[in-house]
């Protein structure tokens, strides 16, 4: 197990800070894979999968004659991986998962281990273990992007005095109206504590205590009757667009794509954002293990990671990619400031603590559901 519990946030000052010059590509022309076969690549669907297809799949297929890719959507969790591996019928070759799921699946022996030494060097020549951000490489998983849960509002509905902090999201007096929130304890407890004045760095310390938990739920109580709960990432932009909610928490990429792709008048509030990782994992015992590993290495290279950022506003996990991040693929929008990892966006931010959630998710889910069911 090679991880650091808390990442040094400064290491993530991507976007504009790093000025490593991009050396000419050495990997681009090399043959990307050793074997032919059909890969089943499983991801979250929608704009997110589209960004991966554009940035990873298409270039990989160009460099890898004989390979085919079947793209499949899922809604997260490791139930399917567990069923496939335990049933010894693995049909998913490579899966995009959240960090806590990656750790747990790895702990339970459901995933292939990944040799970090075999990951390609960055375009600037840095070895992978240095090039990847701290805390993005794990025994069984390699991160591709950094994403974030933020809150957003419709600029045509809220004008003039706009919400700026997480506390504003909970302020029903000043901004009366419905709030959209993800149905679950994760993220919401952190938000609640930050809104209640707990500093971002102390959030998990507080949540480890009974008093801290009670405080978080108490804060949630104050807006409970106004909350519309969402379960899938595509819902919050829709809730905002329909006017069902005045503000909603959401994944930053979904809101960005609604703005950039569909021209919706939404604005993101970065204060109190909770960022997390998405990682590639390879279920144990799949038929295309080698090809899947080739794809993993290829897609987490400097260029593909940077290219993905021009389709969706999620930050690349390699330092060497950040300087290559340019504009949105078909519009004149600088992608750098849209990343969760942009310095401006990280002023008051917290990284989702997978260790806390691995220990407490089940119990807090019960408490959250009990709290929810009380009407």
């Amino acid at each position: 197990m090679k991880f650091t519990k808390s990442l040094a946030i400064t290491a993530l000052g991507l976007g504009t800070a790093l000025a490593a010059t991009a050396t000419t590509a050495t990997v681009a022309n090399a043959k990307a894979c050793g074997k032919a076969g059909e890969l089943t690549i499983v991801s979250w669907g929608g704009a997110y999968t589209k960004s991966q297809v554009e940035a990873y799949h298409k270039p990989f297929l160009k460099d890898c004659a004989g390979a085919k890719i079947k793209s499949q959507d899922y809604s997260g969790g490791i139930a399917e991986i567990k069923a496939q591996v335990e049933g010894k019928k693995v049909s998913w070759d490579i899966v995009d998962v959240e960090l806590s799921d990656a750790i747990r699946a790895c702990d339970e022996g459901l995933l292939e281990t990944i040799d970090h030494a075999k990951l390609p060097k960055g375009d600037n020549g840095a070895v992978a273990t240095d090039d990847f951000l701290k805390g993005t490489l794990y025994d069984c998983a390699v991160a591709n992007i950094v994403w974030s849960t933020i809150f957003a509002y419709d600029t045509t509905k809220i004008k003039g005095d706009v919400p700026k902090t997480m506390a504003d999201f909970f302020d029903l007096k000043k901004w009366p109206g419905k709030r959209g929130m993800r149905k679950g304890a994760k993220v919401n407890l952190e938000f609640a504590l930050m809104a209640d004045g707990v500093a971002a760095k102390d959030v998990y310390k507080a949540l480890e205590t009974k008093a801290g938990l009670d405080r978080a739920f108490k804060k949630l109580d104050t807006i409970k009757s106004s909350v519309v709960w969402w379960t899938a990432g595509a819902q919050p932009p829709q809730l905002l667009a329909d006017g069902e909610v005045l503000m909603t928490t959401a994944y930053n990429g979904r809101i960005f794509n609604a703005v950039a792709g569909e021209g919706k008048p939404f604005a993101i509030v970065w204060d109190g954002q909770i960022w997390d990782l998405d990682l590639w994992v390879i279920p144990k015992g799949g038929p295309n293990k080698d090809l899947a590993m080739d794809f993993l290495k290829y897609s987490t290279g400097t260029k593909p990671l940077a290219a993905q950022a021009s389709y969706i506003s999620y930050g690349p996990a390699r330092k060497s990619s950040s300087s290559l991040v340019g504009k949105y693929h078909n519009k004149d929008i600088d992608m750098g400031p849209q990343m969760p990892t942009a310095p401006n966006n990280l002023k008051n931010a917290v990284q989702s603590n997978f260790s806390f959630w691995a220990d407490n998710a089940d119990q807090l889910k019960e408490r959250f559901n009990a709290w929810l069911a009380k009407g």
Partner: protein
Amino acid sequence: MSDAAATSQSTPRDALLVASDGVPLKVKLAKTTAAARRRAFLLTLPLVLFVLISFVFPIGEMLVRSFHNPVGGNVVPAFAESIAKWDGKGLPSEEVFEVFVKDLARARKVRDVGKTVGNLATRVNYEIPGSRSLITKSARKVGKIKNPPYKDALLAIDKRWSNPHVWLVLQRATTDYTLSFYLAALDRRYDKTNNIVQADELYRIYIPILLKTLWLSALITFLCFMLAYPVAYLLSTLPLRTSNLLMILVLLPFWTSLLVRTTAWIAMLQTQGVLNDVFVSLRLIGNEDRIQLIYNQTGTIIAMVHILLPFMILPLYSVMKTIPPSYMRAARSMGASQTYAFIRIYFPQTLPGIAAGTLLVFILAIGYYITPALVGGNDGLLISNLIADHIKSTLNWSLGAALGSILLVIVLMLYWLYNRLVGIDNLKFG
């Protein structure tokens, strides 16, 4: 009929009937029908196999999973054997600690599915939240312990190991059979001295939700019945052409995907939705006080009544269609008013349909989860949502199985109750 029974009894049992060639008649009969019976059996064989494979085995496996969880014995077999003998007082002995440290260090290298330290950590974490990291973290470090005393070395890694409760849970978690999951499903748990106690009030979820599920299902069944009865009656009395057309409308929801239907309800019922717009434009309510019809219990009830309505209408319709109008006419001609004739004559004859419809709708309702998940919001969650959650996301299959088994028992009890009250052979599903 009684006549037939009388004739069969008039033949003395001991007088063996024989065919003209001396072979007993029964043997003869069995021979002539054997081929037909074999063919009939072969024809049903695919279904029997299908049901076995797709239903009986999985349900059986689920039931077993709810109390059989051999993870402890799989991960740390030597320790499981050693701690089983511990009397549960204070901390286990130094030998047990030694076995534990060595077994954990060995298990740390195992990457086989179901036999990793992670599996044990998950199991222990169910009973002491937060102990997953205790076990995974310790497992990474125990390899360094080479010399006794093992107890002190382990306590040095994490002082939580000095808590006897951890060892009680480990003892329990390393036995193959456990009631922990049924206790959890009933909002109960073992306390620090192995007594069964109620869970902390803040964490009690399953029994309240189960009761709410039963109550909501009953309400939905009742609403379905109230709405379906007149419709089914109308359908059964209309001329065939009109009733066929209306029947298509009734069945229309069956032909649309569940998700599409549910989404349609969202469009219809949300605060900015069609229904609220109509209310506002009719000035029934102000634009500011639009009614919350979805993402709450109301939404769950409305959507589920709609979705389950055909299951009530169809059995009612099929029963009502067989009741000729002459019964009501006969009652009227004998002097009964419309209401009296309905209550005494028509209604009792529709009971088999009512029984089938309510049983069907109720059982479907307590097992429903997609609709409440999509439109339930805060307080519209049902027990199946919790089961689905344990199967799909928390992966606590054993708890999911225990909840599922409890639900199964409730359904079977209902069935039994119905059998006592109505008689299962009186059910008429359509």
